[in-house]
C-alpha cells in the first residue's frame, strides 16, 4: 500500500525542466547580443519576400540589396522556412 502511495506521489511530481541543448543556447545568446532596434517584423518581411526571392533567383545578392530581410530570415524560423519553400518551388518551376 505504502509503495503504491509513494509511486503515485512520484508520478504526479513535476519533472525537472529539460535544459536547453548547447546549440540552442548559443543560438539564444547570439540572438540576444545581435538584437538591433531597427529589425523588421514578420509582416514587413512577408511584404518584401517576393522581391527578395526574385533577386535570389536572378543570381543577385539579395542579402546585400535587402539586408533587413536577410537579417529577419536569419532570426525567424517560420519566415526562413517559407522563403526556402518558395525558392524551391520557383526554382523547380522555372
Amino acid at each position: 500500500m505504502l509503495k503504491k502511495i509513494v509511486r503515485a506521489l512520484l508520478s504526479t511530481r513535476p519533472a525537472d525542466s529539460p535544459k536547453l541543448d548547447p546549440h540552442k543556447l548559443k543560438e539564444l545568446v547570439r540572438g540576444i547580443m545581435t538584437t538591433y532596434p531597427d529589425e523588421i517584423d514578420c509582416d514587413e518581411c512577408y511584404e518584401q519576400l517576393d522581391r527578395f526571392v526574385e533577386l535570389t533567383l536572378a543570381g543577385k545578392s539579395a542579402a546585400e540589396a535587402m539586408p533587413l530581410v536577410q537579417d529577419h530570415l536569419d532570426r525567424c524560423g517560420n519566415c526562413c522556412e517559407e522563403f526556402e519553400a518558395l525558392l524551391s518551388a520557383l526554382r523547380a518551376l522555372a
Partner: protein
Amino acid sequence: MAERSTLNGAPNTQNRAPSTPQEAPGTPQEALDTLHGARSNEEWVTVLSQPGLRRDAALEDLHTLLVRGLGYALSDRSNLRESDLEDFAQDAVLKILNGLHTFRGESRFTTWAHKIAVRVALTELRRRRWQDVSLDELTESRNGGAEFIPDFLADPALGPEQQAMQQVILTTLRRLIRDALTDKQRQALQAILQGMPLEEVARRMGSNRNALYKLLHDARRRLQQGILAEGLSPQDVLSAFEL
C-alpha cells in the same frame, strides 16, 4: 461562388514534383520569364478582376500552377494528405482574389501568388503538426522560472577562464529571464526554444505571429540591456560562447 465552382472543376493536375528534371532554361532571367507564362502582371490583375470566361481560364491556369509549385515546395513534408495540394492551392487562389488590390507589382504576379500559397500551406501544416501540444507541456509557466537555462556548458576543450565567463553569463541570463521579462515573454521564449513555431505559440496565446515576433524582439532587447548593464560587452559574451 463562381471562383470556387471553377476551381472545383479544374483538372486534377500533378500532385507531386516530377522525378525527372525539367529542361533548364538558359539564364536566370529566362527562367523567370518561363515561369511567369504568357500573361504580364497587368494582364493577370485585369483578367482576374473581371468576371467572365477569360477569368475562369486564368483561375484554372493559376490553380494548376500553384498545385505544381506547392508540389515542389512541400516535396519533403511527411505529413501531407492526398488532397492537400489541391486544397491549399484552392485556399490560396481565394486569398489571392481577395487581396488582388494589394498586389503592388514589385515582383512578378506568379511569384507573389506562390508566396501566398506557401504561407497558406505551411500555416496549415504547422497547425496540424502541433495541434496536440499545449504550451504548458513545453514551458515552466507553473513556476515562472528559467531553469531551462543550464548552469554551465560542459565543454572540456574550454579553458577555466572561458568556462568561468560562460557561467557568469548564464547565471545573469537566468536571473534576467526570471526578473526582467514578463510572464508572456518568458513563456513564448521558452516555447520557441523548444521548437514550437511562432504562429502556433501566438495562436495559443490569443495573439498573432507578427505581434509575437515583436514581443520576443522586446524580450531580446531587455535581456541584452540587462547583460550590458552588468558590464559585459557584446564581444565578451559572443567570444565566451565562441560565436
